[in-house]
């Protein structure tokens, strides 16, 4: 009875039930597979988070995003004239999150690789690229750098999936891939 003291005072010398032992071995093997899966994916998988990130400040990050937008804006979109930026393939691309938008709109080329820098100017935000479904946590003061290679063309939305205030649900960004 598990609500009574064990009948053998020296419980740690009890024998182990055969089925229990078999299950422990199976479960342990599976746990090891799960563990090895992560280093395995780093080597052979193509979807990994980079280890590259920097401490930054909202001002510093905003000025880098502004500089990129100034140089590579090709047109504007929506009635509030959000710049659509077409940076050269292989370049550093900046995306900033703030209440409640992702800025600017990016236009990337299919199967080209970019270094995407993301940070927040105010609170925590969630970068959620849809419908491709890549989800990253974005922290103010930290600049995340991921090397991405869009391999589908089309129009992608950047949804904010970390709660950031009452206008959170309007926080949408856009990435065009051509």
């Amino acid at each position, binding site marked *: 009875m598990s609500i009574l003291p064990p009948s053998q005072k020296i419980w740690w010398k009890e024998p182990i039930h055969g089925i229990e032992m078999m299950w422990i071995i199976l479960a342990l093997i599976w*746990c090891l597979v799960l563990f090895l899966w992560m280093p395995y994916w780093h080597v052979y998988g193509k979807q990994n988070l980079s280890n590259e990130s920097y401490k930054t400040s909202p001002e510093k990050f905003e000025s880098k995003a502004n500089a990129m937008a100034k140089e590579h804006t090709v047109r504007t979109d929506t009635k509030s004239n959000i710049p659509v930026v077409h940076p050269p393939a292989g370049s550093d691309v900046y995306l900033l999150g703030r209440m409640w938008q992702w800025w600017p709109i990016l236009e990337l080329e299919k199967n080209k690789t970019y270094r995407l820098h993301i940070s927040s100017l105010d609170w925590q935000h969630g970068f959620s690229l849809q419908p491709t479904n890549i989800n990253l946590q974005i922290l103010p003061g930290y600049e995340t750098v991921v090397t991405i290679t869009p391999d589908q063309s089309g129009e992608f939305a950047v949804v904010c999936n*970390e709660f950031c205030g009452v206008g959170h649900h309007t926080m949408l960004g856009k990435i065009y891939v051509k």
Partner: protein
Amino acid sequence: MAAKMFRQCPDSGLFFHKSAESLMKAHAVLGVVYLLVGGFLGLLVALTRMPSLHLLSAEDFYLALSIHGTAILIFWIIFFEMAVLYFAASTLLRCRPATPGIGWVGFLLMVIGSVLVMTAFFRGNSSVMFTSYVPMPAEPIFYLGLILFAVGALIGCFIFLGTLVIARQEKTYDGSVPLVTFGALTAAIIAIFTIASGAVILIPTWLWSLGFINHIDPLMYRTVWWALGHSSQQINVAAHVSIWYAVAAILFGARPMSEKVSRTAFLLYILFLQLASAHHILADPGVSSTWKVFNTSYAMYLAVLASMVHGLTVPGCIEVAQRKKGFNNGLFEWLKKAPWANPVFSGMFIAMIIFGFIGGITGVVMGTEQINLIIHNTIFVPGHFHATVAVGTTLTFMAITYFLIPVLFRRELIWPTACKWQPYIFGGGMLILSLFLLGAGTLGVPRRHWDINFSDALLQFQFAGTAITMLGIAGFGGFLAAVGGALFCLIAVGSLIFGKRLDPGASLFSSFGFPMASSCYNVERPGKLGLAPVEQTGDGGVQAKGTFVLALVFLASFVVYFFINAKYLSSIWPMG
């Protein structure tokens, strides 16, 4: 002459000490109050996320969601766990509780703390969610309330440890503490660690909210906060697994197949769960992959192993006990002949199955560094923790309440038919909710989001129609679960007020934290708690074959689901 402070429950044979009993009752009742508050707001959240209803305004929705999470995940569960700690130390060991007066101080702090947090929420300026990530600010009384609540809970944990010491000194039992008490001890140890982490992060955050500190690093906050936030859910796991063993013993006279295995599994929780909270920051910048893999791997997978072991040994010990009673035909007669109409059993068993199959598997998938990329902060996450916490923990606590109302409160349960159906309604509703949230999350639907149609956003985006349909079905599941939850609260509160008194002399208030009529306490010192009878030792050659088959089905589902997600991951944009 020493006062007669113990009474023996004539139905269960358990001994209750007057002051421990009052503390248990007070904590359990407050827990149910918060379940009611949190559950009601949960219903509003579910009905808002149902796209066709979209009940609340954005502001009210975030307010309701903040209250729902905190009231359930912290207040309901921890109040109830304090009752479990008093039960596991005082009642199971037939011991007087250590410093009951200070126990009331702890209780009072928990009440004041939780009321402060609720006040902050209802004032409307603290809708910061359960996680309360900086730099988003809440009012100072929000953080202060959490700190006071935590101090109160900490006092409860130390009284639990003190009671174990007294029981040992006064030799109220023979041999080692029972497995259930051992499991509660692991819960208390994890709780102490958790609350310490909470203090490390909440005290500076409180000072920040008051303006004494001007910056809290968000990554540091997240790292330390999750040592609180995740480990606090592991207290629940240790607590509800202990209750599973208790139910198996109470209803079936089941004995653990091997004390060694079950206890070692509890020890693994203590050793390896804490840093498993690293899996909450798998998608964060500023932390290297090596650190993430290291901390999620050894810490998480050995804890997963422990849960997988309990997943076999709990039903396994029930099977062995049932087979010894003669339910020995085929693989599953023991299970078919189980008391499915008894909510103590059905609640516990449904909790165990859904916790393992849905909660456990999805938790591990989510904790895999790269797969997390397709899941992080989507509505998959609430899908996962409704299976673990809302079914695993809450339904287990509901099940044991059906046992405690007659035994602890000495009242008969009202509405036997409703009692019989309640675990199925609640468990079934939560199962639907969890499954469809998991599905919608896999399609990318964000969590904590008021309007996934983005109707007043500048840019536009549409989620797949399937995702919208799944949210609708999940909302229906949430509604059903709320019906089940409300039914539980009605039965529990109704039985305390209107249930037939089992001790005719008991006073009107004996149900509400106040002791029974003094005539009930007629034992000065209960006899020493003896060892479990030896004939119950071991499996006696009876093999838990049915359980093993179930365990293999579980493992197969686990493997298949894991690789489906890995396949899905491989289809997203290459990145690194």
